């Protein structure tokens, strides 16, 4: 199972960071032309759900509950990083931010749309959050770094973990028909910037890996419907796929055995 919302939000954020003067939308969608800026970039998942290998389930502990407790001195600026299920949430607060405010900021980050954590978040005390997973895989691999501590309770689960690849088409349209400023140049800009460390870091926050970036295809003859130029390129992206199934606790019995030479009695009490 992968998080499609991470794919949408992560790729959308990355491309917005590259071309700030373009409207970025996930396709198919109905966006009135007058609502778009000078350039429009639409993203569409053409295919997906391809596992890169055949993962074998392995039995490992997964959190059935976790508590993040804020630490550190509020007089100093602090940072907290939470990693789980392949995504990364980062919260940085300035000095003089109370522990309760830092806790609320972490909770807001974990609740934000886009890097969805399938867990119920409950504030506890003045400086802690209790995370209750909605499914056994929801908190798999959770770690906390920075000014916070993690404590959790775990249970054994059969975890299947692998990489799932998707092909995403980036479609660029522009009101500019020139080679230097139109859709082809826009697509080339995106293509050239996707490997920048800053963009890779951003994609990494959403748990998205970029495997391959295709060539830009110019569709100059297909332009129309109020756009002067059109170009596309394909991306091959991967995301962590996780599934987990709790292993039932072993049944146990309490028993005592009384033996003598003539008879053997076994008494079992559940």
């Amino acid at each position, binding site marked *: 199972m992968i998080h499609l*919302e991470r794919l*949408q*939000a992560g790729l*959308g954020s990355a491309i917005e960071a590259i071309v700030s003067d373009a*409207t*970025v*939308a*996930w396709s198919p*969608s*109905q*966006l*009135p032309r*007058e*609502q778009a800026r000078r350039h429009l970039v639409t*993203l569409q998942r053409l295919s997906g759900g391809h596992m890169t290998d055949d993962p074998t389930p392995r039995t490992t502990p997964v959190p059935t509950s976790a508590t993040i407790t804020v630490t550190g001195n509020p007089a100093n600026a602090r940072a907290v990083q939470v990693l789980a299920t392949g995504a990364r949430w980062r919260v940085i607060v300035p000095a003089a931010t109370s522990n309760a405010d830092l806790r609320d900021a972490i909770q807001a980050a974990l609740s*934000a*749309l*886009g890097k969805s954590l399938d867990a119920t978040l409950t504030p506890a005390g003045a400086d802690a959050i209790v995370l209750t997973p909605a499914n056994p895989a929801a908190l798999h691999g959770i770690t906390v770094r920075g000014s916070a501590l993690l404590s959790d309770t775990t249970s054994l689960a059969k975890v299947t973990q692998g990489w799932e690849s998707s092909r995403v088409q980036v479609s660029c349209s522009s009101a500019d028909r020139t080679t230097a400023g139109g859709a082809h140049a826009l697509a080339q800009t995106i293509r050239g910037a996707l490997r920048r460390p800053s963009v890779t870091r951003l994609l990494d926050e959403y748990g998205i890996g970029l495997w391959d970036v295709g060539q830009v295809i110019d569709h100059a003859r297909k332009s129309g419907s109020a756009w002067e130029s059109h170009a596309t390129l394909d991306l091959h992206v991967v995301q962590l796929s996780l599934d987990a199934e709790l292993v039932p606790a072993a049944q146990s019995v309490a028993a005592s055995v009384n033996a003598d030479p003539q008879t053997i009695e076994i008494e079992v009490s559940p």
Partner: protein
Amino acid sequence: MTLLDSAAILDDFERSAVTVETPGEVTIDALREVVHGPPSVANRNPVVHPADRRMLERLPEADRSRETIALYDTIEYAQTATVTYQGRRYEVASVADYDTHGGVWLILAQLLDEHAPEPDEDGGDP
């Protein structure tokens, strides 16, 4: 020179009841999905008549053969609005501001495609 206060004379003409539906605001959410807000619906009583040749010149040449009505009202209609008049739906094609004439707006709206008539039982043309 004082221009004619057209808004005041609108009442001298017969008004027609129309429903104006304006699409809600369009936003893009964190998942980059386009979200349409709820449309607003207003009942208006403008002066309505078929658009004449001079009015049609406001429209692109290719659109002039479509059935077009002209509406005179004292408020602006959104360019994306649809107008329901006598049970038929029209899309707004042009909005002109005659503010100096007392605040009158001239709106041209064109008939949206209607359903094709059902073929008769022989499968021929109706």
